[in-house]
């Protein structure tokens, strides 16, 4: 269980909230680069951390993320004309550049300086990998750009998708460090999903449904180790890194691409789940990439032209009781991503954590909440920069390794859980 005041603090991310200020210390995904595919393309609406914004790519290729509403009369700039280095409000023709600076007010005299004094709130928008990243905090404390490995590999090595989740970010994120649900909820996927099946480690997973857990601090967050019995004298370890505030990676399986997530608050009752796959040593195969596009692995099949999953709460997630009965889909819902989102959304927009009955196996979640609370209050009360801001903290990998029983998992696998360019992921 969690005290109500702490639950409130951790789940509210709007401007001026403690958790909102924490998120505003980090570079985070604002949208996918594919949403702004070419110079001068149509702008898109975005809501991030309860702020309504519009993102655009001007005719010269510069990216901008600015207040959605024109400073004049408050019309939405989503209707804007993207023309000649700026976004022009179609109502009265006010025009803004990618920094939010108003550069033209047609009703003013030609030599008027009025426009110079009009500037919309804006945030930087930078393309790294498949993602456009933003930083919504104080420009004076803007950290260096993020250095997550998935985004820095060559384009043919990675794939990123996103989906709209209709729940608070925290209950979505907590699924990412909750290794114990995999054996149940995703058991069908271990056998059949083209991006999971065939790995030797899957058998360890399926043979031992009561893993032991270790939860250790890292510079940027946590490492959660789940250990299962392997061959005589050894354990199979699945190690999940969490980098604050909401980056997690799933331990790999065989030579399949490695994957993970970001959970980004849209507002307090909705979030984006960004899901990525990459292989540091080779390009993704055509079959792998197609499987990702088709919604296998950690990805979702979305309604064309949107980022809403086809299986969603409005159609009861296309629940199939027959597949549930046979165990092909343990919960009756198809696909890893929707299996997670269906249950997390069922908790309600913001789950009431005062009613929980946690067990020791939830220690990763307990520890993560504590670290988020500590970081948010230390930032609020003392201005302490939180873990995960330093790009050095981003250099982590998940790992799946077999270790002698007497080995401490982090001591033995320290090299396996850090990015080592030119070295393969550690996987079984």
């Amino acid at each position: 269980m969690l005290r109500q005041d702490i639950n409130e603090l951790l789940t509210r991310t709007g401007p001026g909230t403690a958790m909102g200020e924490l998120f505003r210390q980090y570079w985070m995904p604002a949208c996918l680069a594919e949403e702004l595919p070419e110079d001068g393309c149509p702008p898109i609406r975005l809501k991030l951390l309860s702020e309504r914004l519009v993102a655009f790519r001007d005719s010269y290729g510069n990216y901008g993320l600015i207040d959605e509403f024109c400073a004049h009369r408050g019309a939405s700039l989503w209707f804007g004309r993207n023309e000649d280095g700026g976004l022009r409000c179609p109502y009265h023709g006010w025009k803004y550049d990618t920094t939010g600076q108003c550069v033209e007010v047609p009703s003013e005299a030609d030599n008027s300086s009025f426009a110079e004094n009009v500037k919309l709130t804006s945030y930087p928008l930078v393309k790294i990998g498949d993602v456009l990243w933003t930083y919504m905090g104080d420009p004076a404390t803007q950290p260096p750009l993020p250095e997550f490995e998935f985004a820095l590999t060559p384009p043919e090595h990675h794939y990123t998708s996103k989906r709209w989740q209709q729940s608070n970010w925290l209950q979505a994120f907590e699924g990412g460090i909750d290794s114990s649900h995999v054996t149940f909820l995703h058991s069908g996927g271990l056998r059949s999903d083209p991006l999971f099946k065939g790995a030797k480690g899957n058998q360890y997973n399926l043979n031992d449904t009561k893993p032991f857990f270790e939860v250790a601090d890292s510079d940027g967050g946590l490492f959660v180790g789940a250990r299962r019995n392997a061959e005589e004298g050894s354990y199979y370890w699945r190690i999940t890194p969490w980098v604050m505030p909401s980056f997690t990676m799933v331990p790999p399986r065989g030579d399949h691409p490695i994957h993970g997530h970001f959970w980004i608050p849209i507002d307090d009752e909705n979030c984006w789940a960004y899901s990525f796959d990459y292989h540091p040593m080779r390009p993704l195969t055509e079959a792998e990439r197609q499987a990702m596009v088709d919604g296998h692995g950690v990805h979702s099949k979305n309604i064309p032209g949107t980022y809403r999953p086809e299986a969603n709460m409005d159609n009861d997630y296309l629940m199939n009781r027959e597949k549930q009965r046979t165990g092909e889909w343990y919960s009756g819902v198809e696909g890893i991503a929707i299996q997670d989102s269906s249950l997390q959304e069922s908790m309600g927009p913001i789950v009431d954590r005062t009613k929980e009955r946690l067990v020791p196996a939830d220690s990763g979640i307990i520890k993560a909440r504590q670290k988020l609370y500590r970081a948010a209050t230390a930032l609020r009360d003392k201005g302490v920069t939180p873990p995960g801001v330093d790009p050095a903290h981003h250099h982590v990998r998940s790992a799946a390794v077999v270790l002698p029983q007497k080995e401490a998992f982090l001591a033995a696998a320290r090299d396996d859980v850090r990015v080592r360019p030119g070295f393969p992921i550690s996987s079984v």
Partner: protein
Amino acid sequence: MTVAVQTQTLSSCARAATAQEARYRIDRPIAPSRAGRVVALDEGAADVLSRTAQHDWANARFYVCEAGAGAAGDVVLRGIDGGPATLADELASASVVVMVATNDSGVGGAYALGKACWERGIQTAGLVLGDGTHAGTAAAAAVAALRPHARVLLPSADEADVVDLLSALRV
């Protein structure tokens, strides 16, 4: 003139997931579900538990494991307040045992406790105070001692982790 009124029928899941529907969740007091037994395996851990025990706990009891290095079942408990305690009696009503250590001097106690809990189907957790993730430290030795006996292990815990874990478990 007739006006067509289109009503949208929400799916079961969409309707149930709203904040409005959350108001109808059964809201009865939750009884403490865990009878927690919290055991310090060494002197450093005993200091921490003496402070932790001062918090309000629903159903937790705190002990120091005094001896028992070696043979299984040879463990001797005393209450954190100095009162005598018998392992078998204390475990009879326990549903979770949390072991706390700062070094490996309590390895015998961890073994005995872990074995007794396993035989009784009692969940175990272990917290090592200090940085137990780097080899060669007292905390790392404690991690090695606890690993076989704790279903969940926090190898780099601090005093607040003890309180937070017990609070989350509602003991």
